């Protein structure tokens, strides 16, 4: 039998996006919760995994498990080849210029920390500034705060309007001679806002300031082209794009990666080691210390292949229709207010009910089999900006249906009924 960590489960693309067929690829969806069919609307937290991913990981451990980049034996060769194939798949997925610009990390959070600790510590000094936006996830705030705290630098925050849109003029005004890097989310996990990355990059590059993009929420929802965006770094998480947890990708432009010191030391990231001096490995291995998460990297490869076969254009269209439908239905429920009404928006429907706390909404919806996230969504400054403690958030994935939106709407009515 073939042993090269192939995808055992084949997806046969239909001419049009068929959500019922797609749902059959996800075993976890077919269960009842509290006696009701599961309605999984927490995709911004993590997505479910198609059989293609589950079986690929299973296959790897059954047939190919070995360490990579060392050993001349057959299993090591197979594992190495499968692992490196994913690098090329990720390069194509993001349209990076070269596969050495693809660094495997644990997820978006680690990708951002890598840039903050490596690029940031080298290039940000006392009195310098790092510019982020008011809609960032904690993972795109705290790594910069740590850096700024260590270096005596200042974290600047570009404001947003009441719709949850970045104020581009304010952003541009905050780009100053002291700004050393810009870090901005592509798609807000709390509000659904899609940021105008090309404009942000153009403004920053006009002042020779590099831009990191947190792409965790965008990668599963729209075609990302890092060369077209012209961003300098782009970080994504496997588990938010139907792949495994514990694996993600940091894209970086070669020119910048070459100048950056290693993030962590260990095996695989070296060319030679003596007690006097270590010569670091070339890109991308300089940033991949230690035995990596091989199985989940290969699982991520299966997720990328799955998304490619369905087509991100089709997925984007499907989710846009769902979001429009959900918005039109939820906004007409008395006492419900949608938080985050950007004109460019995807995937996320955050809402509050006038006198009912989101936590109570979450419990009652769960009792109806509906999984939503409630809380601050790791974006406390966003909650402060809208002067609310928390929201309930429905976030959509490629397998969600209009019937599930109807279930959500019925669930919200149930919340009102229970809470009086």
């Amino acid at each position: 039998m073939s042993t090269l960590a192939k995808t055992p489960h084949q997806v046969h693309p239909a001419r049009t996006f068929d959500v019922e067929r797609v749902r059959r690829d996800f075993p976890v969806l077919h269960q009842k919760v509290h006696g009701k069919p599961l309605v999984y609307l927490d995709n911004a937290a993590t997505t479910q995994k198609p059989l293609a991913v589950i079986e690929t990981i299973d296959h790897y451990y059954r047939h190919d498990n070995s360490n990579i980049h060392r050993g001349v034996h057959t299993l090591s060769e197979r594992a190495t080849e499968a692992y490196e194939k994913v690098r090329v798949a990720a390069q194509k997925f993001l349209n990076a210029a070269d596969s050495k610009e693809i660094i495997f990390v644990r997820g978006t959070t680690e990708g951002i920390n890598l840039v903050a600790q490596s690029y940031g510590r080298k290039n940000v000094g006392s009195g310098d500034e790092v510019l982020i936006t008011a809609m960032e996830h904690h993972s795109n705030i705290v790594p910069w705060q740590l850096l700024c705290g260590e270096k005596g630098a200042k974290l600047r925050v570009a404001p947003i309007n009441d719709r949850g849109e970045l104020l581009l003029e304010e952003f541009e005004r905050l780009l100053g001679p002291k700004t050393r890097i810009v870090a901005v989310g592509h798609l807000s996990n709390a509000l659904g806002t899609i940021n105008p990355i090309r404009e942000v990059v153009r403004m920053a590059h006009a002042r020779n300031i590099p831009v990191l993009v947190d792409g965790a929420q965008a990668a599963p929802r729209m075609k990302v082209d890092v060369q077209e965006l012209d961003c300098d770094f782009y970080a994504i998480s496997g588990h938010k794009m139907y792949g495994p947890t514990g694996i993600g990708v940091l894209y970086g432009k070669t020119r910048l990666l070459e100048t950056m010191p290693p993030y962590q030391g260990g095996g695989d990231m070296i060319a030679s080691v003596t007690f006097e001096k270590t010569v670091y490995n070339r890109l991308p291995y300089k940033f991949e210390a230690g035995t990596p998460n091989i199985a989940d990297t290969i699982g991520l490869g299966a997720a990328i292949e799955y998304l490619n076969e369905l087509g991100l254009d089709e997925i984007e269209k499907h989710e846009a229709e769902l979001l429009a439908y959900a918005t039109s239905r939820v906004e007409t429920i008395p006492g419900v207010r949608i938080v985050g009404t950007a004109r460019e928006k995807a995937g996320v429907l955050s809402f509050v009910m006038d006198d009912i706390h989101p936590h109570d909404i979450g419990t009652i919806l769960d009792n109806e089999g509906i999984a939503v996230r409630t809380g601050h969504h790791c974006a406390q400054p966003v909650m402060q900006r809208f002067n609310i403690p928390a929201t309930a958030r429905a976030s959509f994935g490629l397998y969600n249906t209009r019937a599930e939106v109807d279930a959500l709407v019925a669930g919200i009515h149930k919340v009102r009924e229970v809470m009086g």
Partner: protein
Amino acid sequence: MSELRELYQELILEHSKKPRNFRALESANHKAEGYNPLCGDHFTVYLELQDGAIKDIGFQGSGCAISKASASMMTQSLKGKTAAEAEELFTKFHDVVTGHAVGGEEKLGKLAVFSGVSEFPLRVKCATLAWHTLRAALRGEQEAVSTE
């Protein structure tokens, strides 16, 4: 649905909408802040302790129906109690909401209405937030308590 009704009993809903002793005590000589970073619930508990007893008690803050009702009913049940009695009541309350009670619920009085929480493990933190905060206030701890 019956489990939900057990959780959101009329008395709980009523207290969540009209919390009692929902005020900052000017006479407070002990106070503490508690928050649940997971859901953003945040309360301050104020105590006026005299000769080891709770002469007056109040709270302020925001949270879900369970946490707010729990705080409200806690303040009602503790007026006049000694610190030791308050600690004892918390232990009993904790046993009930976590489903570990082995009888003795009658001593809780109206607080027994929270027994439905035991079917919702994720909501135990909501029901006990005010109590943890109370304990910190009684013990004079300066740090804000967190349920995480």
